[in-house]
């Protein structure tokens, strides 16, 4: 037997060799070869007896015990990812296979998504509950194109999302056809304007270093999305079984704290203020942020307005004065903004009429203080940074990390006389809080028995069923007029996860499923008030929830329109005195009405509805909760008032 020549080949060499071998075996005149080539386009290739039984001159090595993608999974595991969300794609097939086999499909577990926007949306919601990212895999071309809007949402929302893009850099190694259309010179380019950092590693150790660096950058406030490109060649490159490659140690950078002098000045202003107000938006990155804000507010006996970017302050705390937001700002002598996304908007009134105008609503003598990590990082193209706010003290720092020193500085300045004055203020605020709650309840009573169901009634019915459980509201509330915050008692960080960030519709459903995925291991009841227009962007995430048994109660806020846009078109029609009769064109979701219960059922999710009578809602929620408690998703289609 002839001595076999062992030739190590990579994937592309194998493909090239296979093609050459086929031609050699044919050993036919050129004309015959041309005919065969023509035939190959129309009929499957057949093996020749010679090729099957003959003695080859050498044996190609067609397998490898270990490849670069295994090492990449070692790196991914070292970063502590619990899950990787992806719609499958050939440009990352190496990592995919290594995750599910080499990695045992555990830490990370592969979560099958039906759209890259869903993958990133899930990562967005997950991170806000868990406080750390999960990984997303996507094609470097069509995948990231699908994912782009969701990445932008996470960017605007200051949420760490970790995206790995497959790509094939070396043009000579691409299979003709799809691999060319799915390859790109600079895969991260199209999302570079709204990600914090990206890299294209060209070796496995480079991959390891950049992967660890990317994680550290994503998690350092302001926390933001990052992108890592995983070259296909690198993924599939064989490596020896005993190869020792270094994975750098991950050391998180401490969050930036405010300058001591500026902290002291802020404390002085706050303690001396007669009518201070604290505005908190994306402040509480972690549960500690919520505790820190309670401590500061109680030390100052200052009212807090939670603007809802995160769960910053308990809704039933007597110092929670969210219902009096604008009035407090107008009356304030000191305003402290904590990670407020739009501080200008919070302190100004804007009028969208034929001539757009804005005016400050603060007192001229009011002192304005901001603590915002956004001052440390800003880009120029996308305008999410909002209008420039004129303030008196600006701390470029992470608010959550700065609050303890601010609180201590304030406490040191409070003498007994001041403490008595602050306590008097606290008593007044406690009474005002109770009055606000009563006003909210009175307001909720309007349209109480209406059909379609009012958003206040929906919220109250839901609260009645979940209040005694360990619940987590995994959806935004602006489109239901913030009724949950006005009627429910929120006091834990995971009970609210804020909004989309970039107002990119299609965030809601995947973020809810991602947050529910994070809540699952804690046994929490995840509840989602789901907007109809939002769900229709990528409803396949319902299947993901069913497939992976992610318990989640979704209540459709089915107002059968893109109501925000109805109103926008109405504004134009009114401005032009043309009447509003046609404003439903392009803005409503009727004719036919979508049957969301059937949509859910088709994907293996318990579905019930449409529910239009408010009396039917409570019993339906109880039935759906029974399903969720079994560890499955459920959806109720509730036909609702617009807002």
């Amino acid at each position: 037997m002839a001595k076999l020549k062992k030739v190590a080949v990579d994937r592309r060499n194998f493909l090239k060799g296979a093609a050459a071998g086929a031609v050699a075996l044919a050993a036919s005149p050129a004309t015959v070869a041309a005919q065969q080539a023509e035939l190959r386009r129309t009929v499957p290739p057949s093996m020749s007896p010679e090729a099957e039984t003959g003695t080859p001159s050498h044996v190609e090595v067609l397998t490898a015990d270990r490849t670069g993608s295994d090492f990449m999974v070692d790196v991914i595991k070292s970063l502590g990812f619990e899950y990787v969300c992806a719609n499958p794609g050939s440009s990352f097939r190496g990592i995919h296979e290594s995750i599910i086999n080499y990695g045992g499909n555990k830490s990370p577990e592969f979560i099958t998504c039906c759209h890259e926007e869903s993958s990133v949306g899930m990562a967005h919601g997950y991170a806000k509950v868990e406080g750390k990212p999960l990984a997303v895999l996507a094609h470097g071309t069509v995948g990231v194109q699908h994912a782009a809007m969701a990445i932008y949402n996470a960017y605007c929302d200051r949420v760490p999302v970790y995206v790995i893009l497959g790509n094939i850099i070396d043009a000579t190694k691409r299979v003709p056809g799809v691999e060319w259309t799915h390859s790109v010179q600079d895969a991260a380019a199209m999302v570079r304007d709204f990600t914090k950092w990206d890299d294209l590693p060209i070796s496995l150790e480079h991959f390891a270093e950049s992967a660890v660096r990317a994680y550290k950058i994503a998690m350092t406030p302001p926390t933001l999305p990052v992108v890592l490109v995983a070259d296909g060649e690198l993924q599939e490159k064989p490596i020896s079984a005993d190869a020792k490659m270094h994975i750098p140690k991950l050391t998180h950078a401490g969050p930036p704290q405010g300058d001591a002098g500026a902290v002291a000045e802020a404390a002085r202003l706050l303690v001396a203020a007669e009518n201070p107000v604290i505005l908190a938006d994306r402040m509480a990155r972690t549960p500690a942020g919520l505790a820190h804000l309670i401590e500061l507010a109680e030390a100052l006996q200052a009212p807090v307005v939670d603007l809802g970017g995160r769960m910053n302050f308990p809704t039933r705390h007597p110092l929670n004065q969210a219902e009096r937001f604008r009035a407090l700002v107008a009356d304030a002598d000191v305003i402290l903004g904590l990670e407020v996304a739009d501080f200008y908007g919070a302190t100004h009134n804007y009028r969208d009429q034929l001539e757009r105008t804005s005016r400050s609503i603060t007192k001229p003598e009011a002192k304005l203080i901001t603590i915002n990590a956004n001052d440390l990082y800003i880009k120029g193209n996308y305008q999410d940074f909002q209008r420039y706010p004129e303030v008196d003290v600006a701390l470029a720092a992470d608010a959550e990390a700065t609050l303890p020193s601010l609180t201590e500085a304030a406490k040191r300045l409070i003498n007994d006389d001041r403490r008595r004055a602050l306590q008097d203020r606290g008593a007044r605020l406690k009474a005002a809080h109770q009055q606000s709650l009563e006003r909210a309840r009175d307001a909720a009573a309007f349209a109480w028995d209406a059909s379609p169901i009012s958003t206040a009634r929906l919220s109250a019915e839901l609260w009645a069923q979940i209040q005694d459980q360990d619940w987590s509201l995994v959806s935004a509330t602006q489109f239901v007029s913030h009724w949950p915050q006005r009627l429910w008692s929120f006091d834990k960080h995971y009970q609210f996860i804020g909004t989309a960030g970039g107002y990119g519709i299609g965030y809601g459903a995947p973020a809810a499923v991602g947050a529910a995925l994070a809540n699952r291991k804690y046994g929490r009841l995840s509840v989602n008030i789901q907007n109809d227009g939002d769900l229709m962007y990528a409803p396949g995430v319902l299947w993901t929830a069913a497939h992976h048994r992610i318990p989640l109660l979704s209540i459709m806020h089915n107002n059968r329109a893109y109501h925000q846009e109805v109103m926008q078109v109405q504004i134009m029609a009114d401005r032009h005195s043309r009447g509003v009769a046609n404003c439903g064109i392009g803005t409503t979701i009727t004719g036919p009405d979508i049957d969301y219960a059937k949509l859910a059922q088709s994907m293996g999710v318990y579905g019930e509805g449409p529910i239009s009578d408010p009396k039917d809602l409570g019993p339906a929620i109880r039935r759906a909760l029974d399903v969720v408690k079994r560890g499955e998703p459920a959806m109720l289609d509730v036909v609702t008032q617009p807002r």
Partner: protein
Amino acid sequence: MKRFCITNDQIRRADRRISVPLGGPGPDKAGIFDFCPAEAKDFLRRLQPLKLRLIATLPRVLPLLLVVAALILASPAARAQQPGAETAPAGNAQTGKKIFMNDGCYECHGREGQGATQTGATRIGPPQLSLEAFLRYVRQPTNQMPPYTNKAVSDQDLTDIYAFLKTIPQPPKGKDIPLLNK
């Protein structure tokens, strides 16, 4: 016309001493009511030359404001312009309901005029304004509401809408609904 403003919060304080709403169209996004009810025109005209900015100086002028406003609102002429006064609008409620829906009022204000914080639309069912103030505000809104000219909706249509809004009953207080007291 020069207008004076008063904050939402200050209105609430004033409300405790004045038994009817001050008649403004409701707070804008800044929580500020436009304080120029027809009933208080004379009062405001007297204040205007003083160039007072009520937001800034309210603590000083509030007692005066309350006394004068209460006197004005207590007058027979003022009562005649209050919602619910004897002069019922000559509108058709059924027609008004159709217009309310077809003209998209419900988009911002809700199908029963309950209002919504998200849209900034105030509660208008049942109406808190007199018909005169309602007509004036729809034509010349001072906040975010788009202006509805006579070409878009006629006075008769608005009167019908008003009549519909008047048919919406006042709900029970929140404290009387068990589900709202959880």
